[in-house]
């Protein structure tokens, strides 16, 4: 071997300075533009906004939220944009949904709420064009409706819901009690209505078209069932409050 120390040193120095001038910027230690700090108000990425503000309760692509999934195609198809915006900005009084707008003590700028709303609405639009037409908005019941008739709601309940939630609503083999006064106290009528229409497919609850095969619930049926459920709230009907609320405890 014909190495001499001076020449090794020379080559190393040359290689080193070449590396320093040309190659350094490709090294993993170089701070990336994506690592640069962004002011919380300037975050415009829908995924990030949804992930940090909504996913804990409403789930995301991977996780199931304990509350209604706002990515549910039926829900997205029926909820009007301005309502969605109001829901996010102001929350729902009396329920766990907080207001996220700064004016309501939240952390989101109005612009960021618009990004959330527009992206969710955009999702609905792509689902309608690409989907099987099941969620096409002309065929769907309206997002909101005035309360229906309690007695007819009871009948409709037996027809559509009792199979899973039990005869009196106290829970059946597949699903728990839906008339628990504590549960009903914590949710709004609109929430009940949205869930009946959109279902919780991620938890095994079908949507309003699938309760009975080839026989979707009519808008009147939905309003009536909501009215019947609401009648089980505290004060609405004392008789029902004493009924044992949990027939099936979670354990699979």
């Amino acid at each position, binding site marked *: 071997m014909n190495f001499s120390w001076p020449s090794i040193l020379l080559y190393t120095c040359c290689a080193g300075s070449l590396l320093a001038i040309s190659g350094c910027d490709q090294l993993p*230690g170089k701070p990336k533009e994506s690592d640069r700090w962004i002011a919380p108000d300037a975050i415009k990425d829908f995924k990030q906004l949804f992930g940090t503000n909504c996913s804990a309760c409403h789930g995301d692509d991977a*996780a199931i939220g304990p509350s209604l999934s706002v990515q549910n195609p039926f829900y997205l198809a029926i909820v009007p944009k301005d309502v969605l915006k109001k829901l996010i900005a102001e929350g729902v009084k009396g329920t766990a949904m907080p207001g996220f707008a700064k004016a309501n003590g939240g952390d989101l700028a109005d612009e960021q709420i618009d990004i959330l709303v527009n992206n969710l609405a955009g999702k609905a639009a792509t689902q309608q064009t690409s989907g099987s037409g099941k969620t096409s908005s002309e065929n769907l019941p309206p997002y909101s409706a005035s309360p229906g008739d309690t007695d007819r709601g009871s009948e409709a309940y037996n027809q559509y819901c009792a199979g899973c939630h039990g005869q009196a609503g106290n829970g059946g083999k597949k699903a728990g009690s839906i008339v628990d006064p504590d549960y009903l*106290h914590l949710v709004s009528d609109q929430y009940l209505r949205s869930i009946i229409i959109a279902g919780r497919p991620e938890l095994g609850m079908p949507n309003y078209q699938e309760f009975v095969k080839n026989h979707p619930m009519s808008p009147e049926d939905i309003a009536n069932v909501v009215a019947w459920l609401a009648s089980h709230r505290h004060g609405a009907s004392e008789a029902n409050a004493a009924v044992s609320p949990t027939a099936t405890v979670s354990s699979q």
Partner: protein
Amino acid sequence: MMSTLRTVALWLERRLHLTKLWNQTAGHPVPASTGSWFYTFGSMTLTCFCIQILTGIFLAMSYVPSAAESYHSLELLNYSIPLGWVLRGIHYWGSTCMVIVMMLHMTQVFLWGAYKYPRELTWISGCILLFVTLGLAFSGQVMRFDTDAYWGVGIGASVAGRIPIIGEALVHILLGGPIIGSDALSRFFSLHVFILPGALLAFVSLHLRLVLGKGINEQPKPGVLVKRETYDKHYSEIIKREGVPFVPAAINKDIVANGILILVIVGLALFVGPNGPGTPADPTIQIADAKPDTPFLWLFACAALLPNGSEPWLFFVFPLVASLLLFLLPFITNEGEKHWRRRPVAVAIVILSYLGIGLLTYEAITGPWSPQMDAWSGLPIKAEYVKGRTPLELQGAVVFQDMQCRNCHAIAGEGGHRGPDLTQVATRMTNPQLVRQVIQGGGNMPAFGKNLSPEQTRALVAYLCSLHPPNVPPAREAVGVLKPIGETQPTPSPTPGNVAVRGEK
């Protein structure tokens, strides 16, 4: 040609007495046995310091020590000025390595008994260097004027503010004003680039002068005791027997170790990169956490882990006693055994210190006491802890998230770790116990009674009662209906959700 060079060299030698200087410094005699890997940490610390000075000087060409500008100048260094990020990286990792090799150096000196007679002052000047270096590390963190720096100074001010009588004056001196701002940054800048490096240079000189003057500690042998009356003679005999000039005879391992050290520092800078700057130092930005740099994490962990009211002990009594012990060490054990094998207490101290600092640092990195501020809105619950629940339990899970329980309590390991993980809470606590805990708090948990409606409480507890593995039943009340002895039938468990809080509200 050669004769001209020779003339010039001789001329310089006559005036500068270079040979003499060389023989007294680089060529000073050391025991041959000290040419050991264990004796390389001192020179490595010095190398780190040189790297810090070099990179620091060039960083100062771009850095602006003003609260309004510093963050921007760091972003320029990171993203715009060519190789600025490399310099920042080397400076950051150089600092980290300096603290680490300094610790190793100190450990070696301690275990080898090198602080004993006649090298007491060498040890004391070394202790001063330790504190100056830690001061440089802390003030350097402040230069990276981000939230960690800002609130780090805030923590410093709060600690100072706890000192009785002079507390307020100290806060004002530290901050240079009534509030953390540019004056505070400028004070730390002065400290970081003038005062502390100046002090370090001065004390390094003293340290090296002492090393040269008193000679490097020989490799201790078990059973050879240090005695004030005989040691000097003993040492000069060692030098006479096995003395070699430090350069070139004993420096080879130092050179190798230092070369590797520099490669490691530059490698870390190139492949891991500089630290931060993170979120800018704007106090109106809500932050998720604020942590000091690595050398101070263990103290930070102490502040969280020690019981309430122990802060005066942690921040004043402990540092005072610890540094006093450190400085007085050569006078506490001035003579006697040097070899670590015959000094079990010394070995135990080293092991305990390393274990303690290591564990505390680990704790601080994982930070189990810090709530996870965004968990309540940004951390979904894993599907298996949502599926198969009743509507009430699902609503309880919503309450769980909404009431920020998740910020302190993890489910399936995800979430805050301030409080216990609740993945299997139903196997430990019964429904009434959970209700009591939620409403009254206790055991370092706030009471939620005022903020939860009876319905929310019942839903929440119903959900918590559903958190148990499928094959393990939920916990039952120990005191149920008392059965006569001999009757083996177990007490039926109360139906969760039904044994509710009606009485308590």
